[in-house]
Structures are given as structure tokens and as C-alpha cells.
């Protein structure tokens, strides 16, 4: 029992951390009323996915995949997930920028940025 728990959690704790972070992010996305907090939740959610990818490429004792002179032997980590995540980070930044500018516009129009207030405003108009 103890051993299987160890197997399940500690041997793969990087994935568990990613899952926990992801759920925190999703919770904020769903449960928070404030639109800015929703965006923060979205960022946590995306960061969790980035961590998941990075830990996929990890090789124990591996070094950065830089070209070494002839004859030098080294163990590399897998660079591909890093490259993919660079792209995904750019996507995340752009989505956050668009989202924040939308919130600015919503605030200009309605004067509130929480969901309950927005519903009230919409009903009033």
C-alpha cells in the first residue's frame, strides 16, 4: 500500500504538481467573479501546462543541448518540449494582452468588472 502510494505520487510528483496547478487555475476560471482574477486563473492554468511539457523533456543528469567540441560526451535533455513551450508562452502572453484590453473596454462601458455587477448592468439597460 505504502509502496504503491509512493509509486503513484512521489515517483511522478512533477505530473501531480502540474495537475494540481491546473486545477487551481481552472477553479479560478470558473469560480472567481472578478474578470481580472479569471485571467489570472487562465495564466495559472497555462503555466501548469508549460511545467508539464518541460518536465516531459527532463533527463536526469542531462545538460543543456549545446553543441560541444569533438570527443566530449554529454547527456542532453530533450530540447523539443522547450521549443514548443516558447511558442506556447508567446500565445499565452498574447491571449492575456487581448483579455486585459477587453477588460479595460468592459470597464469603460459598464463601470464594473465583476460578473454579478455586469449582469445587473445588463439587466438595467
Amino acid at each position, binding site marked *: 500500500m505504502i509502496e504503491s502510494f509512493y509509486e503513484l505520487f512521489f515517483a511522478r510528483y512533477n505530473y501531480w504538481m502540474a495537475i494540481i496547478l*491546473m486545477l487551481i487555475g*481552472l477553479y479560478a*476560471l470558473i469560480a472567481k467573479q472578478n*474578470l481580472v482574477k*479569471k485571467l489570472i486563473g*487562465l495564466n495559472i*492554468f*497555462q503555466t501548469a*501546462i508549460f511545467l*508539464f*511539457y518541460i518536465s*516531459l523533456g527532463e533527463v536526469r543528469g542531462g545538460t543543456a543541448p549545446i553543441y560541444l567540441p569533438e570527443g566530449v560526451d554529454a547527456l542532453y535533455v530533450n530540447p*523539443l*518540449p522547450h521549443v*514548443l513551450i516558447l*511558442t*506556447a508562452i508567446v*500565445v499565452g502572453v*498574447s*491571449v492575456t494582452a*487581448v*483579455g486585459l484590453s*477587453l*477588460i479595460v*473596454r*468592459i470597464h469603460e*462601458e*459598464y463601470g464594473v468588472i465583476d460578473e454579478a455587477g*455586469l449582469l445587473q448592468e*445588463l439587466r438595467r439597460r
Partner: protein
Amino acid sequence: MTLIDHLPVFLIAIPILASLLILVAGWWDRRLCYPISLVTILSQFGAAVIILAQVMREGTVRYYLGGWAPPLGIELAIDSFNGFILTTILLLSAAAVIYARRSVEHEVGPEKTIAFYVLFQLLVTGLVGMTITGDIFNLYVFLEISSIAAYALIASARKPRSYLASFNYLILGSIAGGFILIGTGNLYAATGALNMLDISRLLPASFELATVHAGFLFLVIGYSIKAAFFPLHIWLPDAYAESPSAVTILISTVMSKVSVYALFRIIFTIFTTAYIVDVFPVTGFILFIATVAMIAGAVIAIAQSDLKRMLAYSSVSQIGYIMFALGVANQVALEGGILHILGHAVMKGCLFMVAGLIIYRVGTSRLSDLGGIAKVMPISCAAFALAGASMIGIPPTIGFMSKYYLVLGALEAGHWLYAAILLLGSLLAVGYIWRFIEIAYFRDGRDRGSGAARTLEAPASMLAPMVALALLCLFLGIFVEGLMEIVGPAASLLLGGA
């Protein structure tokens, strides 16, 4: 290599360059934006037709970006299935951009014209990229390019509600994007490949892994949110109803279709039928949900009081028809499903164009304010009637042909009950289409201007694409034999044949 061999990459590179060109030219003179955009999309359409002809002649076209062959490089792969989708989406984009000119002047405003065309071009780029890429991570990148452009475009209407619609879509779209990213990561972890062909070759060895099952579910749910498949459609009605008409046309006809395409591609090309039938049987479940979507979408559409919102819910219902093909998963039903991707794009494009025209001229799309509208807008209402007939599935329109194949496929697979419900769904479509027809033709509205000669028909640049699409609904249905020569091979390709 001759120039013609490089056509696939031009499909992506030229519109990106054009979007920069629009930005620069727009600073100089705002009127230049529209012609540049139009020429780019028309030349893309021309290129797509040439490539499709080449694919039908010689088989799949593969293009290695920068000369790097996979697994190191990224490839663009065009076969009969995505060649067909590519031609469809560029045809509809061309219609939308022709229509956009007057609609933008009216609904977006001169100060945002340049930004509108730049984003429009980027949206088309992203969708074309999604269609022709042969790399699963590239698919995600193009998806996000198109999504971010779409968020901004939806918010470009002058109505404050469009900001809210766009924000809701942004949140749901980003969750979908995140799910797709995780699913892609899972597949990479299981196979070590990102090229679609490589993954499909390596995947059977790890079919039983939980990683693969999780990846499958993440990908399918992610793309289902993007395609607005029934219980995941909540972003759709607001996004369609609040955005400017030209944007509604583009996202309703092109964007949701490309997501459906991605779903087909992932399920049939990457996971193959062996996985969804034997290892992880989901077809029955998808079939059930698709049927619920058809009925629920149509019922909610009947209950709407706003024309654009009604058409938006009708889209939810029609996506159900396409997913129905995925659930049945045999040759005939898939032919129907692929045909319905084209058919629904053409008819829904036409219907939304009519709605846009009504907003352009009357200023509202509330059904109760539109009594007797057919007297002043006879051409538009006739186009609505024709496209609506196709939506219901009255022969010989394209809508009839695709539903005919869907029913035939379902019967072949022994799903009698589902086939019957599909026909019931078509009856419900009569409900919402007829409602507009009845209001437009048979109800006396307020007096719109006194002179009998007074007509509210819109300018030619908006009428022409609308009439063209309405006639296409009819002609594609009559000359469906020619289409089947592309759709047939595409369906058998999905099922793993040649």
C-alpha cells in the same frame, strides 16, 4: 523545383505578408485595405483550386518547410480531404471579404478599418494553416493565431455587448487551447513524434496506455469546444450575435468548420478507426450527443426572438449533423458529413448575409420588427428562402443531398432510431426557417416609407455574394455527382483506404 511546387507554402506566407502590407498601405490610404485583402484571398482561392486539381490527379501533396523532411521538419500535407476543406473555406472567405466592405463601413467604423482587415487576413491565415498542416503542434499554433484574431474581431463591433461576448469566448477558447496543448503533449510523450503520419504509425504500439486515452479525450474535448459541439457551445450564440456581420459570416461558416475538420483529422488520421471502434469505443457516445445536439439546437433556435441568435443556435444543430457522420463512421455517412461541411458553410453563409443586410438597412434583427420585410427587400428574402430550403433539406438542394447520405449511412450501420431522429431534426428546422419566412412575407409590418417604389435592397457588393451563395445551394445539389468524385475518395481516405 518549379514555382508550382511551392504553392502550399504560398498559401500561408502570402496572406501573412499581405496583412503587413495592409497595415502599411492603410496608414498611407485607408481605402487600399480592401482591394489588397480581396486580391490576396482570391489568389489564395485560385492556388487552392490548382492544388486540389493536382491532388486529385497525382495523390497527396507533401511540402517540407525549408527542405527539412519530417521528423525533423514541419510538413504541409494536402490530400483530397483537406484540399476539399481548403477550397471550401477560401471560397467562403472570398464571399465574406466581398461582403465585408460595406458592412465594415457601417458596423465597425472608419477608425478601426485598417485593424479590421489586418485581423481578417490573419484569421484566414490561421484557418488555412490549420487546414493544410501535417504537424500536430503546428495545428495548435495556427489554431491560436486564428483564435486571437477572432477574439479581437468579435470585439470590433460598436456594441458594448460585443466586448462581453468576446471575453467569454476568450476564456472558453483558451481553456480549449490548453486542453489541446495537453493532449498534444500526451501524444508526444507516448510516441516521441509530432508529425501526424509518424504519430499514426507509432501509436498502435501504445494504444492501451492511459496516457494515450487521456490525450485523446483532451484533444477531442478541446476541439469540440472550438467547434461548438452541443454541450460545449455556450460561447457561440453571443459571439455570433454580437459581432459585425462580416465577422459572423466568417466565423460561422469557416472557423467552426475548420475545428470540425481538425476533429476529423485527429480522430480518423491520427487515432484511426481501429482505436475509436475497438480500443476506446466512443463512436456510440458521439452519435448520441450529436443527435441530442441536432434536436436541442433546433428547439432552442425556434424559441429565439432575434434573427441572428436564431441562426446561431441553428449552427449548433447543424454541427450536430456533421458530428453524426463521425459517430456513424462508415463510408456513406462520412461522405454525407464532408458534404455537409461544404453545404452548411454555403447555406449558413447566405443566411447570415441576409441577416447582415437586414441590420444594414433596418438597423435591427429582432424578428418582431421585421413584419412584411419581403416587400422592401425581395431579393434578400428570396435568397433566405432558397438557403432555408437547403437548411431544411428540400431536394434538389445541397442540404438534401448531405442529409440523404447521412441517413443512408446510418441505415447501413443499422442505426434506425438515429436516422429517424435525424429526419425529425430536419422537421424542426422547418420550424425556425418558416418562422422568418412567415413574418417576412405574410405579416404586415409598420409602414416602411410611403412610396411603393421605395426599396431597401442593399448595395451590389453585398447582394452579389449573397445571391451567389444562394444559387450555389441549388447548383451544388444538382451537380452533386462532380462533388462526390472528391468527397468519395476523401471519406475512404479517412477510413484508412487509399
